[in-house]
């Protein structure tokens, strides 16, 4: 029982890191960024390439090296997110939503199969592994590296919450989410704020990618697809556009999957997760913590 809860929380914290990027971008320009899950994948591969380049340096202090790689990767994927926004999304702002969605699907494909061309179709194995001792807490088996990764995720999420709630940048983001045209009139540099939002969201996804690589060890070019879907589900459950709601939703989804597997068997896990997505969208489209939004004409 407590093992199931802990497993759920741990998986949920990965979902949360990816889901936050989804939710921020959606909150601010109402765009479903399909390519977001692939930035997670891109993060994993960037980290892999960097660790490969660092070579022997890494083995002496793997945790420190991973942290350095983590920061560098966040910058790289953040920049990649910026580039995607600039090339694929910005020219289409203001066009029908259908075009934007199709572009997002295109961006996702380009990232996945572009990575495949560069890195090949076979899975890669991370050169560095986080190995650690495990302790038993309340009947659940918890390993040290899980605790470290959870800690990093929580720190990143807390930083993000502060950024949005307490800073000038955060206020600008919230203003654009409410009304982009009025924000522009009030002197907010809308383009720059949207670009920064993409940067931050993509950096979070990239961080999750490196952490997944270091923890699980195996990465491949399609690893972002399912987690992207799951992250979206998490965002919807919590309330898309709502940052604390999304974190909550991710943890809830992690638990749902953990218990769902327990109840209905592994082969039905995804049906269970997507079933919840559809249920939430039809019964409570605003999610657990989202406020009611009316469609603007």
């Amino acid at each position, binding site marked *: 029982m407590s093992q199931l809860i802990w497993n759920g929380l741990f998986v949920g914290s990965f979902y949360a890191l990816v889901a936050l990027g989804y939710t921020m971008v959606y909150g601010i320009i*109402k*765009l*479903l960024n399909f390519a977001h899950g692939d930035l997670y994948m891109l993060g994993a591969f960037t980290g892999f390439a960097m660790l490969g380049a660092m070579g022997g340096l890494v083995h002496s202090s793997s945790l420190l090296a991973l942290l350095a790689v983590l920061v560098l990767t966040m910058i790289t994927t953040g920049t990649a997110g910026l580039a995607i926004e600039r*090339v*694929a999304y910005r*020219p*289409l702002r*203001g*066009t*029908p*939503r*259908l*075009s*934007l*969605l*199709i*572009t997002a*699907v*295109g*961006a*996702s*494909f*380009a*990232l*996945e*199969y*572009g990575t*495949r*061309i560069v890195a090949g*179709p076979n899975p890669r194995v991370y050169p560095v592994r986080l190995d650690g001792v495990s302790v038993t807490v309340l009947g659940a088996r918890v390993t040290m590296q899980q605790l470290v990764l959870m800690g990093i995720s929580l720190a990143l999420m807390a930083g993000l919450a502060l950024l949005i709630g307490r800073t000038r940048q955060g206020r600008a983001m919230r203003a654009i989410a409410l009304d982009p045209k009025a924000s522009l009139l009030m002197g907010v540099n809308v383009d720059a704020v949207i670009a920064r939002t993409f940067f931050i969201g993509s950096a979070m996804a990239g961080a999750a990618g490196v952490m997944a690589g270091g923890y699980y060890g195996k990465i491949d070019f399609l690893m972002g*697809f399912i987690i992207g*879907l799951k992250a*979206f*589900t998490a965002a*919807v459950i919590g309330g898309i556009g709502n940052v604390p709601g999304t974190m909550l939703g991710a943890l809830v989804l992690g638990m749902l999957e953990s218990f769902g597997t327990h109840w209905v068997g592994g*082969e*039905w896990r*995804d*049906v269970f997760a*997507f*079933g919840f*997505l*559809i249920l939430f*969208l*039809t019964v409570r*489209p605003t999610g657990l913590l989202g406020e009611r939004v009316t*469609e603007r*004409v």
Partner: protein
Amino acid sequence: MTAVRDRVARRPGTSAVSRLLESRHLGWAGLAMGLAAPFAIATPYAMNIMTSAVIFVMLAVGLNIVVGYCGLLDLGFAAFFAVGAYTSGLVATRLGWPLLATIPFVVVATVTAGIVIGGPTLRLRSDYLAIVTLGFGEIVRIIANNLDVTGGPSGIYGIPGLFGDHAGDPVVFYYAVLLIVAAAVLLAGRLGRSRLGRAWRFVREDEDAAEAMGVHTYRVKLAAYIAGAVWGGLAGVLFAAQLSAISPASFTFLQSALVLMAVVLGGMGSTPGVVIGAVVISLLPEILRDLADYRFFVFGVLLIAMMISRPQGLWPHRSRETARTAARSEEA
């Protein structure tokens, strides 16, 4: 932008080429070409990829009703394809019927699937709809993979041909498929020009205005969804007849994305455009087999490029109302 200049420079009817393309006989010319093709080449391989292409046309025309006419992004269209293929495969192998006789079952099953999937979700905003359909596509595939009645991961095999004989002669099969699909394409085009079709376009252009003008948008969208589902399901019957064995591997998200690609490439809402888009998308990888691994990368880049530079597709739908709206959206 170049696209705008293109449009201005080549008004309808300025060249022989475009006059040909505008011609009402174009569809018949295409059908004639399809009918004549086996006289040029009738190796099993050629018949096979031509049959596949024609079936793919059927799928694309079905998705075009949903995405092109009504403006609803469906990322799980393979679900209906799967429902059709599995229903006919199951009925045919269990009862020993020829596949053509299973069509009533398929229509019932796909209409039900359309209502089950579309019913709760069509009230949602368009972008939610996209991801929900994606989720449904995955759910249908996973269910087919897990149930014993659908044969699990290895699926159903030993499916009889359209007329009952096992697989039959490829040329006869090709002609049968070609005629069925031609009728389906014609019907879809008619549907697009009907009263319902106008309502679909209205909903696509401005849902709120349509609602205000008294169009029952939910019912109209559901109709588009069901029509698309039936077309997709019938394509599934043909697919089952062609392969004689179906498995969940044929109904992945990639399949849905390919159909969407065909619709977007050809021109959303334009029947000739979508037909040609489908033929190109399904034949190209056979011609460029060595580049198979680059295919999806190129598709992704193409999708972005198309949406930015030519959102109306290579072969846009033309009618007075949409020409104006298209021009307006390009100015924006």
